[in-house]
């Protein structure tokens, strides 16, 4: 199998999938503008992301990466989310094939955008 057990698990059972009404922050990342897109929604309390949701168009690993990112992000300070790296997501997923690394990039980018949005709204 090309993908780790963790990737498959998050692909098959994505955590925190879906949208959110009135989020405190939303952010998107598109990959070279070709329909591949991940969007995060954040609910923030006391500077922390207490609830996270995501939606995505994209291949299996993109879904898994978004799901993993939502798990990694929950409960963390919003400032912190801007610093969550694609590499952290990939590591948590136990690796991604060379030609699917972009999945972690997209998730990290969308999460950062959502965090910045929340900071902007708050600030």
């Amino acid at each position, binding site marked *: 199998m090309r*993908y780790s057990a963790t990737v*498959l698990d998050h*692909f*098959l059972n*994505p955590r925190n*999938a*879906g*949208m959110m009404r009135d989020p405190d922050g939303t952010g*998107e990342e598109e*990959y*070279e503008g*070709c*329909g*591949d*897109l*991940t*969007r995060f929604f954040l609910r923030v309390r006391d500077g922390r992301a207490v609830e996270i949701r*995501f*939606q*995505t*168009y*994209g*291949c*299996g690993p*993109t*879904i898994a990466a*978004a799901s993993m990112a939502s798990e990694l992000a929950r409960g963390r300070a919003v400032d912190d989310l801007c610093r969550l790296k694609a590499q952290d997501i990939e590591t948590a997923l136990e690796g991604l094939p060379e*030609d*699917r690394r*972009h*999945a972690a*990039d*997209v998730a990290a980018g969308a999460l950062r955008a959502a965090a910045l949005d929340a900071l902007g709204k708050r600030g």
Partner: protein
Amino acid sequence: MTRRVYLDHNASTPVHPEVMAEMLPYFTDLYGNPSSIHAFGRDAREGVDLARERIARFLKVSPQELVFTSGGTESDNFAVKGLAWARGRGHLITSRVEHHAVFRTCQALEGFGFEGTYVGVDGYGMLDPDEVRRAIRPDTVAISVMHANSEVGTIQPIGEIGRLARERKIPLHVDAVQTFGKIPIDVDALGIDLLSFSGHKIYGPKGIGGLYVRKGTKMVSIQHGGEHERRRRAGTENVPGIVGLGKAVEVRARDMRAEAERLTALRTRFWEGVRARVPEVRLSGHPTERLPGTASLLVRHVESESIVLGLDLKGIGVSAGSACTAGNVEPSHVLVAMGVPLDWAMGAVRCSLGRSTTAEDIDYVVACLEPIVKKLRQVLPVGAA
């Protein structure tokens, strides 16, 4: 993962047991080089000759009109380059839905000064012979059109294109890799001058194929060396492969009709099942002029590879119609040529049935597909979610 269902017969097929049985001795006992004049060589030559006769009988052509190659890709390269180089320069006509083996060969020839016209198709993936007619120029040196499309299964109106080509004395090459041994082909009635075929699509081995070249067709060879295949294709013959291809064709000649009927029924069962259980799904390709075993689905708003991956985890092998390359969902050139909108094209999944496929397999795949699509749509950032 207990059950395994292979629905990717357009990609490759297992070698038929009867084919395997005929090939086996040629690896270890009848291992001579057919060019050798001694008994070891003659035994190998006999195997090659018999295979050529079997295929000739099936196609109703002369054995001398057949050249063995290393597969469909080489046959396509040989046909198009062989015609082009024999003429030195000029204009080539092909279509926008060809297999890359023809498509990129034409593009490569453009790099050598040939000109190419790539005729479009309608929403079913079908060529309009009138468009081919309009593309013909005084310096057109070859027309290359596939018989049936490997991705969507649409069968092209070869007979009409053949008539046009014949009237103008332009050689017509047909890539029949997906039809040879699946549906009847009459090269004379269809006006075909060259025909590509491949072993591994019809329960023969991989790494072997052939090209029919109508007697009198001006051609040059593209692989140089010894005087094999009547000086048309150099290289020690792949004897077991050739023997296997010959036997595979013989078996197909026997089983083809019944199998086509059986697969058509299974394909209908599949499509009815999918349509009833998966919302927003279409069957791509022509509704009637199509390969018996090919069912290419367009699942709206879902990404091909995710479906393939989901089914793979259930032991099911199907093929993605769009590839996710470095983050881009790229619909195949065929779907683009057909004008399929991106929200549908991104979810193209080709299921191709074959000898082993049963009604239970079909029902299992349908049952697996429904929840996978549903789950994938739950994460979508669009209306469908």
